[in-house]
Structure formats: structure tokens, C-alpha cells
């Protein structure tokens, strides 16, 4: 029997400040708040770029750079700043970690919103304008519902990124499931490390399945089909996306 199973089966590991429920809640709390702030920044900007078509090149470039920065490297760069703030001011020293996690989550959310809106049939929007709908009504009534699967796809990517990064952030912030991994490596207590890894994987998969459900519910029923993947629909007669657009599509999904 793998040792992490006996670790997880031990009731002593399921209570107190270092217990599994506490650590899981911490992990969700840290990740959730970072995603929330990223949504507040990324969604409006992405929707605005998608609706107006302004600043699209900049958005794609920012997203590509965001992809290229490894989360481990970002956390590494944040650590000296956190340490210089000092552990006496605990909550202040956690701020850089929080900023780093938010920064990683904004690009996929922004690009998902932008790419989703761009994929909406232009004729449809022209027709809506012709019918006298205001821009806000077009955005709320047509663009957002049709783009919903792609928008949620971007959010899914962001959430996974943040859950993974929160693991590394535990070095600094002291909370969440990453604690098991780093404490376990220091002690060393390998079953604890493995239990931590299993819990993080389970949490990530669980949250992703939950969001896949949300994505399905938000997909307008004509776009749903059993074989449908969370990719935007191909508009017939339009050339297939290549290069940057294909990349945006893949990141957004």
C-alpha cells in the first residue's frame, strides 16, 4: 500500500491547524481570492477589447508573454520582495504572492473574453445594430451568451494556473496544501509530500470538473452536442484560424 494512503487514513492528519480540511480551505481561499481579483481586472478589459476590437494585438502579446513566464520563476522573483518586508508584517509579506498569482490569472481570462467575443458572427452583430439595439444590449444579449463557453474556458485555465501556483506560494504565504510538500521535503517526511501532491491533484481536477459543468450550462443549447469540446465553433465559410488566432484559441480553451 502506498505510504500516502496510510498518511491520509490517519485521523490525526484531519484536524487542527495543519489538518487536511484546514489546508484545503486555505488553498481554496488563497486561489479563490486571486481568481476573483483577476476576474475583476481581466473580464471588463477582455470584453471591451473583444467588443471594440481595439488593442487586440497588445492583448495577444501580453498573453504570450504571460505564458512564457513560468509561475515558479515568478514566485521565485517575488520571494526576495516578501522577505524584505519581513515576517513581522505577515499579511503585508503575503501581498506580493497574491499579486503574482493574480498576474498569472489575468491573461487567460482576458484572452478568453477577447477571443470569445471575436468569434461571434459579425453579421449577427450588424443585424442587431440594424434592429436598433444599443451597444450594451448587444454585448449582454448576444456577444456574451454566444461567447460564454470560450470565456469560461479562459477562466478554467486561469483557475488551474492559480491552484498550481498557490502550491508554490506556500513557501512564502505559509498556507494551503503546498505546506505539506515543502514541510515534507524539509523533514523529510515523504508520505506527507505525496499526500500533499495527491490532495492538490484531486483539488485541481475536482474544481476543473465543476467548472466544466458550469461551462456546459452556460453554453447556449444550439451550440451543445455530445462530441463538443470546449472549443469555439467554426464559422462555416470562414478561413480556419492560423498563427496568432489559433494560439489565442488554444490558450482560451
Amino acid at each position, binding site marked *: 500500500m502506498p505510504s500516502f494512503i496510510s498518511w491520509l487514513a490517519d485521523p490525526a492528519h484531519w484536524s487542527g491547524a495543519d489538518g487536511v480540511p484546514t489546508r484545503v480551505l486555505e488553498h481554496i481561499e488563497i486561489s479563490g481570492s486571486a481568481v476573483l481579483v483577476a476576474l475583476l481586472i481581466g473580464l471588463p478589459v477582455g470584453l471591451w477589447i473583444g467588443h471594440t476590437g481595439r488593442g487586440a494585438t497588445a492583448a495577444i502579446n501580453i498573453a504570450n508573454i504571460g*505564458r512564457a513566464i*513560468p509561475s515558479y520563476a515568478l514566485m521565485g522573483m517575488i520571494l526576495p520582495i516578501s522577505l524584505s518586508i519581513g515576517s513581522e508584517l505577515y499579511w503585508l509579506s503575503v501581498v506580493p504572492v497574491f499579486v503574482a498569482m493574480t498576474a498569472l490569472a489575468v491573461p487567460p481570462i482576458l484572452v478568453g473574453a477577447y477571443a470569445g467575443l471575436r468569434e461571434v458572427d459579425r453579421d449577427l452583430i450588424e443585424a442587431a445594430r440594424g434592429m436598433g439595439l444599443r451597444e450594451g444590449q448587444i454585448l449582454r444579449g448576444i456577444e456574451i451568451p454566444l461567447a460564454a463557453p470560450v470565456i469560461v474556458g479562459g477562466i478554467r485555465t486561469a483557475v488551474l494556473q492559480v491552484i498550481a501556483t498557490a502550491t508554490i506560494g506556500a513557501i512564502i504565504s505559509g498556507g494551503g496544501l503546498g505546506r505539506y510538500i515543502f514541510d515534507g521535503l524539509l523533514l523529510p517526511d515523504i508520505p506527507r509530500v505525496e499526500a*500533499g501532491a495527491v490532495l492538490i491533484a484531486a483539488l485541481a481536477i475536482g474544481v476543473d470538473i465543476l467548472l466544466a459543468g458550469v461551462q456546459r450550462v452556460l453554453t447556449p443549447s444550439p451550440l451543445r452536442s455530445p462530441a463538443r469540446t470546449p472549443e469555439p465553433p467554426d464559422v462555416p465559410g470562414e478561413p480556419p484560424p492560423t498563427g496568432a488566432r489559433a494560439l489565442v484559441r488554444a490558450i482560451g480553451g
Partner: protein
Amino acid sequence: MGDHLGLIWERFTQHLELTVIPVALGFVVALVIAVAVLHRPRAYAIIISVTGILYTIPSLAAFLLVSRFTGLSILTAIIPLTTYTLLILVRGIVAGFQAVPPDVIEAATGMGYTGRQRLLGVELPLAVPLMVAAIRLATVTTIGLATVAAILGDTYGGFGQFLTEGLQTFFPTKIYLGAGLSVLFAVVADLVLVRVERWATPWARARAGAR
């Protein structure tokens, strides 16, 4: 100074190895899967779900879990890094094949191409742009994830090793060095692949020139 450059070169070759092997291996596996599920939407949906779940596992957790079975060998890094590329590559390759215009396939069939000849001679070359887009994304992602592999030890650490050492010794310069070099590597690798795409699709260039 000379020693430092030597060390950076060594870490670079490790990082290159940690990137090229998973992407190449992932591409071969993904191509086989993609061709197999191309005309089977249900099988494709299942493959996307499975690779999606694999993609969901945070890298740090994946490395530590795989090390249980492989010990601390290069396989410990290669296996998770390869599985991560599968989602991106299978999707990209299938999308590439689907982007081939039906008229072209019909024309090829009309000219007497067998299914296999058509796949290799017509569909595969036309799918190249989207495939390269997927490879670019997989490469940049792998370069980022490979830095985490340094937690397994210094033999295969790549640029992530600078990060780990910097974190352990609280030496910020090393952290910035490791982060900067891995970002630089990702950007350069992406640019190289753009050149490869241009080279592999001469007709796209000709078309752009004719316009």
C-alpha cells in the same frame, strides 16, 4: 566569470533536453492519437477529457508522484512534461486536419489518391500551420514547467536549478538569473519555431506575396 558561463551553458543544455524530448515524444504520441480519433468524434471527446485531466494536475504534484515509481531519474521529469503536451498537441493536430478544405480532399480522391496517400501527401502538409501553432504553445509551456522539475535535484535541473538554489540560499540574483534565462529561452524558442513554420509552408509565403 568563465565558470559562470560554463554553468549557464550546462543548465541550458539540460533545459533544452527537458524541452525537446517531451515535445518531440508528445508530438509523436499525439499524431498517432489524432489520426486514430480524427473521424471518431466520441473517441476524440474521450481523449480530450483524459488529456485534460492529466493537464489539470499541478506540475509540482505530478513530479513528486511520478518520482515514486521512477526514482530520481530523467524519466521523472520527462513523463509528466510529455503528458502535459498531449492536450495542446492532440487538439492542435486534429484542428489542423479539420481545417483542410473538403474540396481539396475531394479533389485528391478524384485524382486517385488512396486514403493513406491523401493523408501523407495532402492533409498532413496542409495541417502544418495549426500543428506548428500547437507545437509553439507546447514548447513555451514545457519550458515554463521544466523549471519546476529542478525540485527533483540538480542533475536535470535546467534553469530552474538557479531558482531552487536561489530560494534555498536566499540569494535573489540567482532567482532573477534563472527566471530571466527561462523567459529568454521561451521567447527565442518561439521565434525559432515561427521561422520553422515559414520554412515548412512555402505556399503560404507565395500566396502572401501574390496578394
